[in-house]
């Protein structure tokens, strides 16, 4: 019987001790980490959206943890212990089949885009393998008061009626919009550095106003466009009718004076009119995430693609525009 007691009692006791040390105590300690400045609890609607996110297992493909690595800078600043106060259950995730969503409210602020993408991801990102969440929407003859129909491209729209989000879909999109990293003291200087992750080659890219006027890098411009712009304006530059304006034949893009073009890329845009069509969506500002050379590369790419013929710009002009607002 002694031997049985040794195996059963002894090993279980040892294991219980280790479980306490490696699981329970860290759990207790880290549960106490206070919220950082600007880390707020969710509103009721956002919290409901988080439940939809959890119930449908979004975090099996989307992480919510930005690692202190160069490659993660596209997703935001590195996650800090003080970010997680209100995140129970935790949603750090273990796989990035899709992109990280820690800061998606900043990176993609357009709810129009989010609704189209949720309804049919391939309508905005043709290569996407995310499932369609059409079952979070309803097809009705007429949108009820206060709910905007989703402006789907014709190929994905139902034959009759309009598509409107259910309450769950509205909550989910509200939650995604709320996923914004509060800036913290240590991160302000990181803004310029953030851009380096957008292109692999940018460790050599000049940062700030000292950029030389050395003509644009077409390959880098195309790559940056894919990473930052094509989700809305599409790879063919035509945008999505009724949702996102085209850059092909766009007046601001073809204007020889690039001032407006630069301004929009740096500071974003809300509710605008392009080619006589009103677009209600939001375009995010890129001033914090792209450096001058990268903004210039994107702008030059847009100005020389899809039959556009705007005069190219240079990093110095971007720097000048950036300085104006400060």
């Amino acid at each position, binding site marked *: 019987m002694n031997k049985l007691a040794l195996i059963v009692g002894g090993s279980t006791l040892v294991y219980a001790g280790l479980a306490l040390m490696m699981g329970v105590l860290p*759990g207790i300690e880290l549960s106490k980490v206070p919220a950082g400045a600007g880390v707020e609890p969710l509103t009721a609607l956002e919290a409901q959206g988080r439940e939809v996110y959890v119930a449908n297992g979004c975090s099996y493909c989307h992480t919510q943890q930005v690692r202190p690595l160069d*490659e993660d800078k596209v997703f935001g600043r590195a996650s800090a212990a003080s970010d*997680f106060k209100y995140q129970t259950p935790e949603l750090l995730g273990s*796989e990035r089949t899709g992109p990280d969503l820690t800061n998606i409210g900043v990176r993609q602020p357009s709810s129009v885009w989010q609704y189209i993408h949720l309804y049919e991801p391939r309508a905005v990102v043709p290569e996407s*393998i995310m*499932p369609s969440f059409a079952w979070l929407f309803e097809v009705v003859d007429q949108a009820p008061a206060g709910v905007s129909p989703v402006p789907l491209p014709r190929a994905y729209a139902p034959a009759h009626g309009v598509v409107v989000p259910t309450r769950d879909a509205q909550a989910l999109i509200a939650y995604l919009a709320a996923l914004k990293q509060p800036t913290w003291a240590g991160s302000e200087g990181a803004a310029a550095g953030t851009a380096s992750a957008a*292109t692999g080659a940018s460790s050599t890219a000049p940062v700030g106003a000292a950029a030389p006027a050395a003509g644009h890098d077409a390959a880098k411009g195309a790559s940056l466009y894919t990473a930052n712009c094509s989700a809305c304006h599409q790879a063919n530059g035509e945008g999505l009718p009724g949702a996102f304006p085209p850059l092909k034949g766009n007046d601001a893009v073809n204007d020889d004076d690039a001032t407006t073009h630069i301004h929009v890329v740096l500071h974003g845009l809300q509710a605008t009119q392009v080619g006589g069509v009103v677009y209600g969506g939001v375009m995010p500002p890129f001033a914090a995430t792209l450096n001058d050379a990268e903004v210039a590369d994107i702008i030059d790419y847009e100005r020389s693609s899809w039959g556009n013929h705007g005069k190219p710009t240079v990093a110095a002009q971007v720097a000048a525009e950036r300085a104006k607002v400060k």
Partner: protein
Amino acid sequence: MRMDVTARRSDLSEQDNHALISVFSAYTVSAAVWLLFATGVGILMAFKFGAPEFGSGAWLTFGRLRPIHTNATFYGFASIALVGLGYYVVARSSGAKLYSAGLAWIGLALFNVAALAGTIALDLGYNDGDLEYREWPWWVRLIFLAALVVTGWNLIGTVARRSSKDIYLSNWYILGGTLWTCIIAIVAVIPWYQYGLGQVAVSGFYMHNAVGMWFTPLAIGVVYYTLPKLLNRPIYSYTLGIFAFWTNLLFYPIIGAHHFEFSPLPWWLQTIAIVFSVAMLVPVWGGSSNFLLTMRGHTRDLIHSYPLMFIFVGVMSYLIGSTQGTLEAFRSLQQVWHLTNFTVGHSHLTMYGIIAFAIWGGIYGLLPLATGKQASPLGMALHFWTALVGCFIYVTSLSIGGTIQGLDWMHGLPFIQSVIDMQSYYVWRGVGGSLMFFSHIVFAWNVWRMCYGPETVAAPLQSLRAEEAVA
């Protein structure tokens, strides 16, 4: 110290024998059903990577199926199969009858109720968070815990009835694994100390320990019994087995945080996890060399016996997969592979390559001894080769694809490029997965033959253990 299990012949009554065989068979049949279900779900998910609209709607959406697949594999198939094998091994190697056949049946019912309720809850969108391997609602996990407690109690009672003073090595692992897992389940289910980052720390501990302190010890315990039994020779070193037992117990619980490297978890916690991931080479190499040295010089027996072939693959996967786990823990490699499909490849190399193959080796080796009924050699061959080739394709494609994914990110390509680059590897994963699923259908057929098929006396395998009719 050493006890020769192959020579042990108990003098149990016909009735006790029958009770044990019924329990073993029922657990195996139940496990086979869960394997078919869980991997059927897995195949459906694999298709979705190529055709995301395939099987759309809330009940079939990927994010709900993913935890159904993992939980049903872990707690439906592997747990039930290993407990069934565990009962047989513990009773036989102790030369005793089961402490209580009734408790074993209650345990089986509880395992099944938990797996069924958990599956339904997840599909309806009820979970306790997307916390890997503990998504089931808390009350479902309490049912599973009850099944564990019943099993542990029953196993202890059975070993306490043993006819000799010594406790055979297998029982160390099987008893230990069951009791440790009770602790893991309790740690995981108590919610009052798990908030925010604190829950992340518990997740790291849990997701690792639920695999390596439950499935691995039970699988090793089964191999320590089945291998000498089939080879008709004692294990190479009893002492080495004990040494691996204690080192595994001391090192393994510490390494859970390596699932959250570069996360906001305290850096020291991550570093300790990496250091002890290296220390894990001691029990892993100790255990696997013990098995391999037991097989040494018996290659001919090995290649003529599918049960032994299954065990051999299990042992090799243990050696390769666990060593790979140590390498993956290094920060330099984790930077490439973390969050990619490489991890999915690793988890299949280990859960499938080690655990499932050890289970199959145990079932093909021991169930015919219990029931006196054989699976056909063709059936075993078909199962073995399709499972092996399928798993090889699966793991290889995801390891290569995952590496490319990681390098894409490091080179700063647009994220969508990593999705595009994975496409062909997802197709190969589907091919491998289909072969694996096919092998499980064959397995189910083989189980049926071993439980309800015709009595067979002489099969090729029988030459190895001609002197044993029942045990």
